[in-house]
């Protein structure tokens, strides 16, 4: 068994209003950053998981996602696992 850092990215489903993204986009425009066309905001969740393989770790987290970590009604998610850290933090 090894320890993996699993990165889970949860993003608002397309078509839904994303007020956070909208507000950030607006703020960036008024700061003069015109090159930005769109902003969407989601969550980045880092989990330290003990598992046999990275695939096993990833699968485990996908299961947690469906159960708890993402809201299927409003969010999509994507999971990647790597050994020995990899989290931004």
């Amino acid at each position, binding site marked *: 068994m090894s320890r993996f850092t699993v990165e889970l990215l949860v993003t608002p489903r397309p*078509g839904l*209003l*994303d*007020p956070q993204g909208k*507000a950030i986009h*607006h703020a960036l425009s008024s700061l003069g950053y015109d090159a930005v066309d769109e902003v969407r905001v989601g969550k980045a969740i880092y989990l330290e998981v003990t598992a046999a393989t990275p695939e096993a770790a990833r699968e485990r987290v996908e299961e947690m996602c469906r159960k708890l970590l993402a*809201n*299927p*009604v*409003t969010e999509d998610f994507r999971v990647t696992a790597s050994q020995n850290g990899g989290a931004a933090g």
Partner: protein
Amino acid sequence: MMAADRDASGYGTTQAGGTATIAPPEPRPGDPPITPELVDDHGLSPDEFAQIRRILGRDPTFTELGVFSAMWSEHCGYKNSKRMLRLLPTQAPWVIQGPGENAGVIDVGGGYALAFKIESHNHPSAVEPYQGAATGIGGILRDVFTMGARPVATLNSLHFGDLERPRVRYLFGGVVKGIGDYGNCVGIPSTGGEVYFDRGYEENPIVNAMCLGLMRKEELIRGTAEGVGNTLMAVGARTGRDGIHGATFASEELSEGDDEASRPQVQVGDPFTEKLLLEASLELIASGHIVGIQDMGAAGLTSSGAEMAGRSGTGVEMDVALVPVREEGMTPYEILLSESQERMLVVAAAGREDAVREILEKWELEAETIGHVTASGAFRVLEDGVVVADIPALPLTEGCPTYERPGEEGDEVRSLRTMDIAPHEEPPAGLRDAFLRVVGSPNVASKQWVYEQYDTTVRANSIERPGGDAGVIRIPGTNRGIAASTDCNGRHTYLNPRVGAMGAVAEAARNVACTGAVPMAITNCLNFGSPLKPHIMHQFREAVLGMRDACGYLETPVTGGNVSFYNETDGKAVYPTPVIGMIGVMEDLDTIVRHPFQDAGDAILLLGTNTGELGGSEYLYAVHDLVAGEPPGVDLAAERALQRCILAMAARRVLKSAHDIASGGLAATLTESCLGRPRKGDGVGASVRFEDDLPDTALLFGEDHGRIVVSCAPGDEASVRGLAADYGVPCARIGTVTGKGSPLRIETPTAALQLGLDTLRERYFGAIPGIMNEAG
């Protein structure tokens, strides 16, 4: 005579100032053909479709079918409720605006008018609790500020299934957070509400939000499109594909496995944009640049446009290509029916468009001219200049067919109602155990966990915050107050809808009166199952009749409300839940009365009579897991006398406390008066003794209406008794406040209980946090 009966003869001809007759719209390329299946999918019956054809004099286009379907849905058209609702009393000298507008309005004195309204967001909250509840608050705020009133308070009435179930905790947590995050960001204090948990709401939570707004009387504005040639402007957020057919969705039963299909119907709230809209709208109204304004709520641009035209007898013409959209390739059908949040339709006075835009720019909001007011009487929609819908406005808004469906009491409820509950008067583990279970049941226990997630003090006018009988808000700059309460004990209305609804009105009025405010008017939110079922129709009719009687007798007319049908999952309906939102006015805030006992030595008196009615009580539910029996009866004459009496006592300032008796009976009321507020001192003990010849459980846990527990300084006892006698209200001294550190002692002819305040505190304040924290 109904508008639809007038047919469409005036339509299409050229009228003064109107445009020339326009050829009927051609089917738009890509639109599906109008088939019986498509009509059925739109929730329209063959008869209704025939009527649409009569109104138009031809087949509708796909866009028009969508428009009719939304406007003639239950949600917008009130087709199964309108006839019953006409029975409700709606008038009083202080009513400025009755049902039919975005919100009701009453005169609250001192030159002020109060706009208020309650709305349901049950279906969206069942699918996505956080956003569903948040957007519910957003919608009700808009209904109030589009009347020209500044929102000053919100309330919420929530009914969920059993809190032991994880799904229920998820819904409850999400709904409370959604209400909080939205209202807090906009900066409107929450002053009260109610929360119930009962199996009757397992799959279908009831989420009703109420808003109160204040204005000077002359600031009132109505949602009309007046003045031919005036300009229609779309203001606020862009239109997306979210919530298309939300209105129809809210009118259909949820079924298992519907999740996937209902996904696109989730709308996301943006409270910051709402705050901008609020400020901009009030500024626009004050500026005189606009003649009308309306929220694009259910059925979006369709209902706002058609209703504004319908109310003023004019027409509107707009081009969907001019509407700012969030997504590419949106069809007229989608733009007209989108329920994207935080949008308004504004009618600007011709020539003032730039002035309007300037105000909106200050608030960083978009405003686009999308059309104008016509004299045609038509709701006419173009796409890039090509007509895609052309419908006479009045038949569209007023011509929705209405039905009066047969009703009959259900067998199941009849057997529960008539069940002999006497065998359950004996508590299995003793009286003390039953007492602690009742005050620790999530229904009776403190809702602190809920209301502490709501900003209750913003704007510094909250004179009485949640936690007492009714919240009280000061009218800024005056010494006048507005009290408000929402009430509906769904168990009572389930067992006997007529008596239960009367009880809801009586309790709401009593709650308000206990603070010293005069009950003035109500708004209501009628949450029921499918009206197509006779036992549901029976519940609906009975509830309306009970409300009619109580509102008439207590002189609290109905100024508006909302009907939410189809609260069912797989054929199982919620308890019939007619939520009452009551408004009261207090002329002098110094006369306010609160519920906690105060000083050792104060006399405790009971106003009203103990009758020991355990039917539908929390005791039966919490201790025996039973919903049965006749709910407590309502003696309207006694109720009215009691309320006038308590108001007189408040005005004379002879009371130290007053607290009404409802869920959990005397046990709950005495516990709450002893414990006082969370985080504020340690409460005081009391010693009470009853002489009633009633079984102990019936005495302590009976939920008989018409009772209030008051306390007063010993020197005022004679005045209190004297006033009670003047109003013909039974009044008995039942005990004494014993002060800090002492317990609650209760004696009956057959029992004696002593309950330490620490124990009570843990049960009462700890119940809901305990369940929510432990279970996560």
